[in-house]
């Protein structure tokens, strides 16, 4: 079987030529409300959410919204069919094309219904009938009817549908609730990952998948993680599947090398530009990936539901490629794309991005319910992650409400993150405790094969009334180890591991929930992180320094969080107050997403910076402080001052740890001015309009890189940038891993190697598709007197190889296109 047996090739899918954009009008209480085009109407009809507001797609008041909904309710499905949404350029993109791959017979039965009538039909019909309707609907139709539905409507209808999937086990049956163990770790430490997997399994989680988001996307690491998780699965005997959620290209490389890949993961989006530019894939690439998996995946021949997609409202807006389509509609279009590949699981992680897409818990909950309903209607086995970041006005209470509603609405699975805080991605999501609470409240079991495995391991028991109960081994991961100390030893490398420290006697659970000491520590850490996210720059402290105070276009903290663009520019008055100063470097202090981080670290970093830069003979502008700024503000400041380099000191998005919520970053934004650097940089990045390159030194805080040390690192990096006239990855390629100050090579004991090689020998060497370039490779090039080497963009160069490149003065060029 191949993909074309399920779905048509792109060029055979018929999409109507877009009709001329229509103006939709309605009069309410003597006032006319009008909407220019279907996309605008859809945006206006949705519950107001921050992302749509920021993109100008939401309306200002409830009357406008209800007017849009009323107009929408009277449109037929045929009307929606005849008006495919287009890109800004007026084209129909590939994601839209895929959405038109529907069952036309089914569509024929509903085409003349209005959306209002369809909503009413939904309320009457059964789950299987709903699923049948879904096969005849495009994503836009699904989104349109969803916008007419209330919370009860969404829960009532979503609950009726069950979308089964079959991998190593059978998922999605009535009466089940599955879970994905997400054992993320900041260094992919296999012992810590093992501990979190065993902890999750011991609580009856992981039947959907054991899925790791890796911190390092190199082939070696992904292969090691996949192999390790596969071994763990086999050792424990858990009937489930494993997945490492790296870029799909890395997973495909693993398949080619024989590494077991049960499930192929990729993030998808609802516009072609987001898909290509944000996620580096296209529909045709995904088609090929499916075919590869179907032939060579670990479950090839056993199932065709081996794909795993993650989605979530707002990614298109966050990347700036929404094409004027609102978040819910783009999400439904994403589901239309997911549907093409009959996935075994889809997870909507709405809420992950932050307040620029969802300002508060209520917006997140609405989106969660919409996503679940829309995904199920399109036949997808939907998991939902009701997650939040610390800088959104969302918290645990809202998340728990979402979990209740989603369980009631029949979500197929939730994730299990150890204690509910992701240690790598800095956000909060559901925990194994949440999953168990839902199981006991709603009497839900994991997938049948996994249920029996849990009974066998005494993780669960069934009481006389047939209800699921915690067994004697529930929450006892040591049952999988030789001893408790062996487990504790693995667990000690897990950060933010409240109550699980070695030798601690803290009770771990209270019934299905976390014990009180653990909850209190967790919530206190979250409170500190949240306070950091909503803190203000300490002007009293900063005014002790010789600074100039300017404003960004974000007039308040709320605007700063909900409208990222406002923090990217100086306010007009501030811009006008600046004039070119001919400085080399301008230091700028701004709050970013944690003013507290700046307040904590800046007084240590700044003196070191000034000492180092002035000692290096560089001319510094008077330090600028701008409340409510983002990294891109640096570009505006360069335009105003004409400096070569801006060093931006700003707070990072707080995670759920006390120390890390005080973490500051330094962005070194270099203005490319001379012709040669511009040409090189644009060629390197394949961005013709590129004007700036930047390097970043993150995690400046006492638990990461201490501020004093960070100051010296920033000085070193600034000197390297000015010396090589390059920043970011291009700088790394140019200078390798010199671990020293530019100019040190000119000191007497480091004779500066002159490029006195003869022009004979081999000038170019092409590494073709070789993915790992080591120092040994470069040594050979040195011997051959090679001047330039060609490598794939995805090749990984070892740091010492980069050193040698710099020493041998060998240039890098790429032999492939993105």
């Amino acid at each position: 079987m191949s993909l074309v047996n399920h779905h048509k090739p792109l060029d055979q899918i018929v999409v109507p030529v877009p009709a001329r954009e229509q103006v939709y009008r309605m009069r309410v209480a003597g006032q006319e409300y009008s909407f220019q085009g279907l996309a605008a109407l859809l945006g206006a009809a949705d519950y107001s959410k921050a992302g749509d507001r920021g993109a100008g797609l939401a309306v200002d008041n409830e009357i406008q919204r209800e007017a849009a909904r009323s107009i929408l309710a009277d449109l037929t499905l045929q009307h929606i069919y005849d008006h495919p949404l287009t890109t800004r350029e007026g084209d129909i993109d590939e994601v839209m094309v895929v959405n038109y791959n529907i069952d036309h017979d089914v569509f024929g039965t509903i085409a003349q219904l209005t959306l209002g009538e369809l909503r009413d039909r939904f309320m009457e019909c059964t789950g299987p009938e709903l699923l049948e309707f879904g096969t005849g609907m495009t994503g836009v139709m699904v989104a349109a009817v969803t916008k007419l539905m209330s919370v009860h409507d969404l829960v009532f209808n979503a609950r009726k549908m069950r979308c089964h999937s079959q991998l190593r086990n059978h998922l999605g049956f009535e009466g089940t609730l599955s879970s994905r163990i997400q054992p993320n770790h900041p260094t992919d430490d296999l012992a810590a990952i093992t501990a979190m997997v065993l902890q999750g399994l011991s609580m009856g989680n992981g039947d959907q998948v054991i899925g790791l988001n890796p911190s390092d996307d190199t082939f070696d690491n992904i292969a090691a993680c996949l192999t390790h998780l596969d071994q763990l699965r086999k050792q424990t005997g858990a009937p489930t599947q494993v997945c490492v959620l790296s870029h799909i290209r890395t997973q495909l490389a693993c398949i080619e090398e024989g590494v077991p890949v049960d499930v192929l993961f990729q993030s998808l989006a609802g516009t072609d530009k987001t898909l290509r530019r944000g996620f580096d894939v296209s529909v045709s690439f995904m088609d090929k990936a499916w075919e590869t998996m179907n032939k060579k995946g670990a479950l090839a021949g056993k199932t065709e539901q081996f794909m795993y997609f993650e989605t979530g409202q707002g990614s298109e807006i966050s990347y700036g490629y929404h094409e004027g389509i609102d978040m819910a509609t783009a999400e439904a279009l994403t589901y239309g794309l997911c549907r093409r590949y009959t996935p075994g699981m889809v997870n909507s992680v709405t809420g992950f991005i932050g307040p620029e897409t969802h300002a508060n818990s209520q917006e997140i909950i609405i989106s969660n319910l919409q996503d679940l309903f829309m995904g199920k209607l399109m036949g997808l086995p939907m998991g939902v992650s009701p997650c939040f970041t610390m800088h959104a006005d969302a918290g645990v209470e809202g998340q728990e409400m979402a979990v209740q509603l989603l369980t009631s609405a029949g979500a197929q699975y939730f994730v299990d993150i150890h204690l509910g805080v992701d240690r790598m991605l800095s956000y909060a999501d559901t925990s194994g405790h949440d999953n168990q609470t839902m199981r006991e409240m709603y009497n839900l079991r994991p997938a049948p094969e996994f249920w029996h495995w849990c009974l066998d391991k005494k993780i669960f028991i069934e009481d006389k009334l047939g209800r699921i109960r915690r067994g004697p081994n529930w929450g006892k991961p040591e049952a999988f180890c030789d001893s408790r100390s062996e487990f504790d030893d693995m667990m000690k490398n897990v950060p933010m591991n409240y109550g699980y420290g070695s030798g601690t006697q803290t009770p771990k659970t209270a019934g299905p929930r976390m014990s009180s000491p653990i909850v209190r520590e967790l919530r206190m850490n979250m409170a500190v992180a949240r306070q950091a996210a909503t803190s203000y720059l300490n002007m009293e402290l900063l005014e002790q320094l010789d600074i100039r105070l300017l404003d960004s276009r974000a007039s308040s903290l709320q605007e700063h969080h909900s409208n990222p663009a406002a923090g990217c520019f100086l306010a007009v008055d501030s811009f006008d107050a600046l004039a070119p100063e001919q400085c080399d470097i301008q230091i700028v202090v701004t709050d970013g997403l944690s003013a507290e981080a700046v307040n904590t670290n800046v007084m240590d970093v700044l003196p070191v910076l000034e000492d180092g830069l002035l000692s290096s003979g560089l001319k510094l502008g008077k330090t600028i402080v701008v409340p409510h700024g983002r990294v891109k503000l640096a570009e505006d400041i360069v335009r105003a001052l004409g400096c070569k380099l801006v060093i931006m000191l700003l707070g990072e998005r707080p995670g759920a740890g006390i120390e890390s919520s005080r973490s500051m970053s330094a962005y070194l934004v270099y203005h490319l001015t001379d012709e040669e650097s511009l040409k090189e940089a644009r060629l390197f990045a394949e961005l013709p309009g590129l004007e700036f390159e930047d390097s970043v030194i993150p995690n400046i805080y006492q638990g990461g890189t201490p501020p004093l040390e960070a100051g010296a690192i920033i000085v070193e990096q600034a000197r390297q940038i000015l010396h090589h006239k390059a920043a970011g990855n291009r700088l790394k390629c140019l200078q390798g891993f010199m671990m020293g100050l530019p100019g040190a090579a000119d000191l007497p004991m480091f004779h500066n190697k002159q490029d006195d090689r003869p022009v004979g020998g081999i000038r170019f060497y092409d590494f073709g598709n070789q993915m790992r370039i080591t120092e040994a490779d470069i040594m050979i090039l040195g011997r051959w007197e090679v001047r330039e080497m060609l490598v794939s963009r995805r090749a990984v160069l070892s740091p010492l190889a980069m050193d040698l490149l710099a020493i041998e003065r060998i240039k890098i060029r790429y032999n492939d296109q993105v």
Partner: protein
Amino acid sequence: MIGLDFGSTTSRAMIARTRVGQNRFSGTLGAGTPEIIYRSEPLFTPFVDDVLHVEDVLACLELWLKQSGTCAEDIFCGGLIITGLAARGSNAETIAAAVEQRLCNFIVATAADAGLESWLAYMGNTQRMSQAFPRSQFMNLDIGGGTTNIAVGRNGNVSEVGCFHIGARHFRFQPGSYTLAGVSEIGRQLADYYGFSAEVGRPMVRSCRHLILDLYIDALLAIVHGDQAFFQCLPGSLLVDLPSGWQGGEDLSLTFSGGVGELLYKVSEGGALPATIAAFGDLGIDLAERILQEPELCRHLKGHVPENRGQSTVYGLAIHSAEISGHSVHLPSPSLLPLRHLPVIGRLCISASKDDVAQAIAMAARCTAGSCLQIIPEAGSYPSLMDVRRLGQHLAEQLKSGIINADTPLLLIAPMDFGKVLGSYATEWGRIPVTLIVVDEVQERSVQFVSLGCARNYVIPVYYYGMH
């Protein structure tokens, strides 16, 4: 990471794999939890006429690399130790050099470094257990063929080391009998003290064996009690190799490692001692039997069972021989690495005065092949900007005078992450022509020498040896 242990009786290898990567949480680079991928079977140390030859050691190494499927080029760091009687051969340093050369990347190689061996055995055998019981004091007794290496520590940190000539192979026998096949120098001294003849080819009678074993047990008890007087007069003084400063104390838990240690745990777990008393051709089984009869020595055998037992030194070598530096060191050029055998000439407090610094730099100037100073922060807390700036300026003042040649390496080792900032101030941001390296996030230790391996993924392996 590799550990190679050539001891008096047996030799072993262990290979572990770890990943040095960036911590997304803290942004720092560091090594992950090591995973043991290969443990060799113990081989009899390939003596030929009581001498360990380079070719035989290299042959063992090739065998272990082949069995583990590891390329020599993949070895990032590790250690080779030649201990006990094996270290008595005059060619130990030659062997160390040959192994270093074969493994491409630098590993530390030492012979007869009793303090290091004691420390490694503790780290390999007892560290994890002592961390699991952080309030208890642990003593590890690594009883091998030639020596018993002791280390005392709490919560994974060693506070005292020592080494005594208590070992199974000072009297070697023909297999299956007590007919002497060889006697070490220490064995001969003991025989002379007790006035019995230790002639090769003649049996060592029961009473003589008991004299030796009684002495060993008394000595082990004296070690445990911290009875310094026992070793200050004969015959105890004959047993001292590296005296220990341990004065005794309450709540001491004992662990054992080495060949004799392995036997002790085997028996305590229900196994039997080998049927033939002299099966190993030495006093190992007799010594194990006597320890098992001594309640004070064997009271923790069942309660505290370490995981590596007989393989503790080689485990310690594989996992702990190198400390991994922080990722933001001050290093003028990576081509300076590796740097070998720098004498550790002293410690400088972060608040050191101008005179203290001048004195230390003057001493460094006398070491023409380079030297190392350890930087100590106040009360273990991260230094202030004022402290770092001032110490940097004091150092810069001295270095500017040219007292140290521009190409003579001066290594500063700091226990916390302030290497680059200190190095920057000390060289006036790279303007002073001096080969100053500041490696940070490496704990201070009381040692004589330090070496630096080659950098990989922005971190450097640091080897301490010659422990006090």
